[in-house]
């Protein structure tokens, strides 16, 4: 079909783009441009709003006590559940354990994740990079229960590690079902997340920077300390916060590898919701955990300032 109009026309996608720009101008006039940030963030605020609606329900439940003769929640509100939660020494032990394990896991995970991410970014051979990447994704596909069984085979009393140790004359020892095993399991679980969040930050550091520092005579620990780590700070803080918050609220790893004596707060919450049907106490514990986690996260943001995560916007 010959074009009826002989005059020059812009390519279709140009015209399309112009139309889109005009629509954009109509829907979101340029004078609103300084609010575009809010337009961009609004969907996320709304999506997380779903969770807030749920938290409101949980907050309501946290103010009601359970009557074990009817298994209904009380009609009127009281702070009894909070009093119970905050005055119990068991919960204090458990809370301290969650917190210390979260800090320890974060530090250990970052120590392992940093060189891994660095290797992913810097290694020259493509197949090695791909293999490293695939190794990172594999553990996601093994459910927690099956994974815990794998650990039993490897670290159990008559597991591979103990068998290997006995060859060199070390008597078998219990490696599982203690605090160390839980932290180890958490580090293994969190490592892929940390690496994936570190990679973009390391990609942003030009290799020339390292080479330049090296050619000026800096030793590699000095390059690491004075060049790499400061430049990767946003990534490290981001990865650290993700690992910290996920560990703080985890329940599967302590349940599977802790042998029942290494509960975290989330296990106590699980018990209240599912084992004793006390949704009020469970809700109160959950909200206390959310509050504590949020305060700690907020502190990190305030300490490390707006520069964290490249936040703070353009000048």
């Amino acid at each position, binding site marked *: 079909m010959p074009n009826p109009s002989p005059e020059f026309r812009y390519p279709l996608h140009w015209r399309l783009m112009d139309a889109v720009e005009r629509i954009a101008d109509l829907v979101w006039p340029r004078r609103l441009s300084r609010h575009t940030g809010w337009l*961009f963030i609004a969907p996320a605020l709304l999506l997380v709003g779903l969770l807030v609606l749920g938290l409101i329900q949980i907050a309501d439940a946290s103010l009601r006590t359970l009557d074990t003769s009817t298994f209904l929640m009380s009609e009127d509100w009281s702070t009894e559940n909070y009093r119970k939660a905050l005055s119990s020494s068991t919960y204090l032990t458990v809370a301290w354990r969650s917190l210390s394990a979260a800090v320890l896991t974060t530090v250990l995970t970052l120590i392992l994740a940093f060189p891994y991410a660095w290797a992913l970014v810097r290694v020259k051979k493509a197949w090695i990079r791909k293999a490293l990447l695939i190794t990172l994704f594999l553990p996601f596909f093994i459910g927690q229960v099956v994974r815990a069984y794998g650990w039993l085979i490897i670290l159990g009393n008559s597991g591979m590690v103990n068998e290997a140790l006995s060859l060199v004359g070390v008597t078998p020892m219990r490696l599982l079902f203690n605090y160390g095993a839980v932290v180890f399991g958490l580090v293994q679980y969190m490592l892929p997340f940390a690496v*994936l969040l570190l990679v973009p*930050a390391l990609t942003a550091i030009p290799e020339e920077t390292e080479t330049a520092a090296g050619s000026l005579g800096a030793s590699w620990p000095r390059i690491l300390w004075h060049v790499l780590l400061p430049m990767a700070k946003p990534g490290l803080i981001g990865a650290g916060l993700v690992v910290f918050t996920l560990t703080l609220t985890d329940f599967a790893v302590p349940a599977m590898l802790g042998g029942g004596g290494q509960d975290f707060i989330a296990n106590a*919450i699980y018990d209240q919701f599912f084992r004793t049907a006390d949704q009020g106490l469970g809700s109160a514990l*959950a909200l206390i955990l959310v509050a504590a986690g949020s305060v700690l996260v907020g502190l990190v*943001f305030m300490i490390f300032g707006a520069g964290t995560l490249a936040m703070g916007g353009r000048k």
Partner: protein
Amino acid sequence: MMSFSQKITVWSLVWFSIITLSLPTLVVLGASLTAGNMVAFPPQGLSLQWYEKIALARDLQQAFLRSLIVAGICTLVAVPVGTLAGLALSRFRLRFTTAIQVYLLLPFTVPLIGSGIGLMLVFGEWHVLGSLWPVGMACAVINLPFIIWSVSSSAVLLDPDLELAAQNCGAGRVQTFLHVTLPAVMPGVITGGLLMFILAMNEFLVSLLLTDARIVTLPVLIYNSIRSIITPDLAAVSVVFIAIALAAIWLLDKLVGLEIFLKSK
């Protein structure tokens, strides 16, 4: 160039990570080949009987398809929402940034049981439980920080001058966004999107509370079917799952190249 001590330090840590990450998987792979009735390692005799069993199990296949749908919905929701939020946090000056950050981290600071119970009550009140999309939405919510952060941390790669230059050359706002801003954060978007997909594929605790027997997803089905013994078919399912994932990764590599995760354009 790397010094010898640097090489040793880096690679011993990396090898430790590799072994730690993959050893349980290898054990499970071996255990799935057992001829016995229980997961055991080393396997008691070699057999593919458990693979045969899951190949014939229609409920597993249906659950797998449902998980794909849930993961698809989750990714479709989370990628645009998370990308925009990641950009908003890194490219725009917003007030109350700390408060917003803390708010957007709620999916991680709320324990999964709390999220699950809360979302169950909310979706229940709306009478939408019983379909897969609320499960997908829930997976998008509980993992949203991943994509927000992977996008915002790759946004450091973007030089703001580039955007200004594009606009100086007459590019409109949408054009600048599509041709300058978005390509620059693409590695973050893809990493985040893939992570959202994989996590939704494997999510069980929140899904447990949002599904019922008619729409049960694969991880929930597996978790629930374990009662007194861990049967080898569950190990076999994990192995098949991994095989499918490897195939998908291979395809992705052929189509777009895995390099995209690691390198900006």
